[in-house]
């Protein structure tokens, strides 16, 4: 093309937020026999259609959940995908309307003991746009990008007697990109995942200096690296003798999983 393409009138795409959603609970642990429900609610202002699917994610040592194609699934992931039953798989909801998605796990009789996990995804399907919206100006290049956005939550099946041990080691202050960071390494051993909150307290202070909640360490990793961005105030007080506690979430009882007293200089 040689002639210059003239600018189209700025194509201001209004956000109609088609697909805003609420999901509860945020993680599901199934023990094989009883099923449960996850609630999906349309909190947008328009009717929306949501697709519910099962996907695979693997955790990296920094806590990141990386998508895994089903073709690349290992034996444990294959088994996990095969044992979860759920319905419905597609839901159209008017604004403000919730609906339950029922799910259950049917582990095979000869399944080895272990922890099996899939991630249930809830994603809005964009509406086909009307012809009038697709009519374009005679000249110019304009761009229309529609985000398809959604969430995934872990669905965990524990089969058999499983255990895990955690140790907290090597807390230290490191220089991060945006100032000081507290680096903590946690080691996990055993065949189960752990989930909880890391509280960093200082003797004599009531409130924790730093608190990281919802910290999961899944079976595919033996080490989880945590980096906590510190405010200057936190950095100033996070020296000397500190106590690091990794506890179950309060709603799960708050039991102590691992603790260490460390001197941070």
């Amino acid at each position, binding site marked *: *093309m040689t002639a*210059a*393409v003239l600018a189209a009138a700025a194509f201001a795409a209004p956000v109609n937020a088609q697909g805003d959603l609420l999901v509860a609970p945020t993680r599901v642990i199934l023990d094989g026999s009883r099923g449960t429900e996850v609630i999906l609610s349309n909190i947008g202002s328009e009717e929306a259609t949501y697709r519910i699917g099962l996907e695979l994610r693997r955790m*990296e040592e920094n*806590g990141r959940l990386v998508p895994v194609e089903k073709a690349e699934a290992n034996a444990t992931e294959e088994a996990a995908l095969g044992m979860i039953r759920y319905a419905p798989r597609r839901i159209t909801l008017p604004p403000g309307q919730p609906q339950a998605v029922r799910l259950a796990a049917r582990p095979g009789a000869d399944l080895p003991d272990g922890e099996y996990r899939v991630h249930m*995804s809830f994603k809005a399907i964009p509406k086909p746009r009307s012809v009038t919206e697709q009519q374009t100006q005679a000249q110019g*290049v304009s761009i229309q990008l529609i985000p398809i*956005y959604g969430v*995934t939550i872990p669905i965990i099946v524990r089969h058999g007697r499983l255990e895990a041990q955690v140790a907290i080691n090597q807390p230290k202050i490191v220089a991060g*990109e945006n100032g000081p960071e507290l680096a903590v390494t946690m080691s996990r051993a055993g065949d189960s995942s752990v989930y909880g909150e890391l509280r960093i307290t200082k003797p004599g202070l009531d409130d924790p200096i730093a608190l990281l909640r919802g910290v999961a360490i899944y079976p595919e990793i033996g080490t989880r690296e945590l980096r906590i961005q510190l405010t200057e105030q936190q950095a100033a007080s996070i020296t000397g003798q500190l106590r690091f506690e990794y506890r179950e979430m309060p709603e799960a009882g708050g039991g102590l999983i691992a603790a260490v007293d460390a001197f941070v200089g």
Partner: protein
Amino acid sequence: MTKTLRFGAAGITMFAALGMGTAAHADTATADASAEVLDALVLTNTAALDFGAMVVSGAGTVVLDPANSLTCTDPDIVCSGTTSAAAFTVEGTANKAVTINLPTGTVNLRHPNYNAATSAGEHTIELDTFTSSDNNATSGDPEVTLDGTGDGSFTVGGTITIDGSEEAGLFEATFDVSVEYS
């Protein structure tokens, strides 16, 4: 704002705490129905990804960063109009870090006349190098840490590559944004 939902055993009852009216069809829970409070996860899209308008006379790239700052320096592309980085809000567990997954490859924007068999570059614009405002401290990968009240937000930008042969018209594509709870 609470991020919990309370369900009666007889049906789903949602409180207006989440800015929603009570569910229209909620049954009346009996007095002895057990209720449980569940953590909820909310994702909303508050701004579209918009590169504004372009006058194209040759090849080049246009970069929109997550702070909505546009880099449009190639002489054959003149940018105008209002731009916006895609913006999302997340509500969930306080003080929790949440993975964000953006497209890792290239998203092809297509012209209405695009035909897989015959079209070349004139009907396609490439969008890639998605970037996020919030990243993991060590890896730099997209991650949002919810604050003490369970709120978080992030924005997304990207890079479009134009080869100069584009036909006039509206180029369209969808791109995936996924918020992963652990």
